[in-house]
């Protein structure tokens, strides 16, 4: 076992991990169940988290690699019972159906909007291109990201 330190959703924690363990496996066993297990090969995006500021598929990140790093999961978006603007936008636009892809989509959106506060529809589609949704036709998610961008820039004013 290897000892690692991670700051997850603002909380500094220590873990003993197996050398071959992935971040997805670690996060789920520690109770971060918003991180969904899908393809386990980096193709579907259900396990997307923010690692050191960028969205990655946690199923193909070795946990040891994240040692000393900062992680944000969908659990960390909510603040004192108040939903994050991205979460509000996904609800309002009806971008959630079965919900399995939703946390991953929200984290990919978080990365996009942190680097590009006013994305074009094409930029939104590119940013979500690694997140598969089997229920919808992606139209509502693209709308939700636009709405989230407006909410966040409105808050900033």
């Amino acid at each position: 076992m290897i000892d690692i330190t991670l700051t997850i959703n603002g909380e500094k924690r220590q873990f003993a991990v197996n050398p071959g363990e992935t971040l997805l496996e670690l996060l789920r066993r520690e109770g971060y169940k918003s991180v969904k297990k899908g393809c386990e090969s980096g193709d579907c995006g259900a396990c997307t988290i923010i690692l050191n500021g960028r969205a990655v598929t946690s199923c193909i990140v070795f946990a040891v690699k994240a040692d000393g790093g900062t992680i944000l999961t969908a659990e960390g978006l909510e603040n004192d019972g108040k939903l994050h603007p991205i979460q509000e936008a996904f609800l309002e636009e009806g971008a959630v159906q079965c919900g399995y892809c939703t946390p991953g989509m929200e984290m990919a959106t978080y990365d996009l909007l942190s680097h590009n506060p006013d994305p074009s529809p094409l930029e939104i589609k590119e940013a979500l291109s690694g997140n598969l949704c089997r229920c919808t036709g992606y139209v509502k998610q693209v709308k939700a990201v636009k709405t989230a961008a407006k909410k966040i820039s409105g808050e900033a004013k």
Partner: protein
Amino acid sequence: MSRSQVTKYLRPSTPEEALTLLRNGGKSARYVGGGADVARTLPGDVTTLIDLCTLNLSSIEESAESIVIGATATLNEVLENRSVANVCNGVVAEMMRKVGSPLLRNMATIGGTLVSAHSWSDVIPLLLVLDAEITLYDGDSRTMGLGDLYASRERFANSILTSVMIPVSGPGDYAAFHKFSRTAYDIALLNCACYVHVEEGRCTEARIAAGGTPRLATRLPQVEAALPGEALSDETIERVAQVARDTVKTADDRRASGEYRKQLIYAGVKSCLHEIAQRLEGGQ
């Protein structure tokens, strides 16, 4: 997917240390870059992983002649870099946007991509035509053309790729990249990259490469030879694209037939050269 076979995950701080660890580990040891590829396709006999991302090799620096990209810079870091954006009208970023998804590009490293050498890689054909060089460390550092690495890959099997150099481009340098795939996210059925140097309206130098033929990307000397001395007219472009269709060796695999790939290389060369011709006309 269990990777419980892995019993050691080592984090060296210098290339010397990494090399020693690999030699000690023998066949059961393997280097890891971003890890995306290794985590997906870890061979059953690998039990020791040696992480190269702890070597502090991820900076991107521009000198007068070239942009030096550390091997563990991620593909998105390369995509977003301002110096890289100046190379031949941003062709590197344009190509990178077609590689996987942003989620993968935040993990995958440029060094890992070049060493994995997937036959469908979009990065390799473009870097071949941009005349990129790489530096390998195997006790000593040596610099060579990217093509030389693939010509004698087995000889360099234990070496560590430490950096990639892309020459800065100047007036008259043009490049374009084209990828054919079933979906934007899918790997290429075939891809192609063209570089030309143009002086007074005529091409003085050309480098063209294709990947996913379905073999690993290579330069196409016969196609390149059809360009020097010519202006990029519709007729020239048609002729060069036909040479590509008639001379590039293609084969069948489960993704596409060799015959279909011949049509793709024709269309790919045509599309790259038309893009360059349009830029020339627009004076860009």
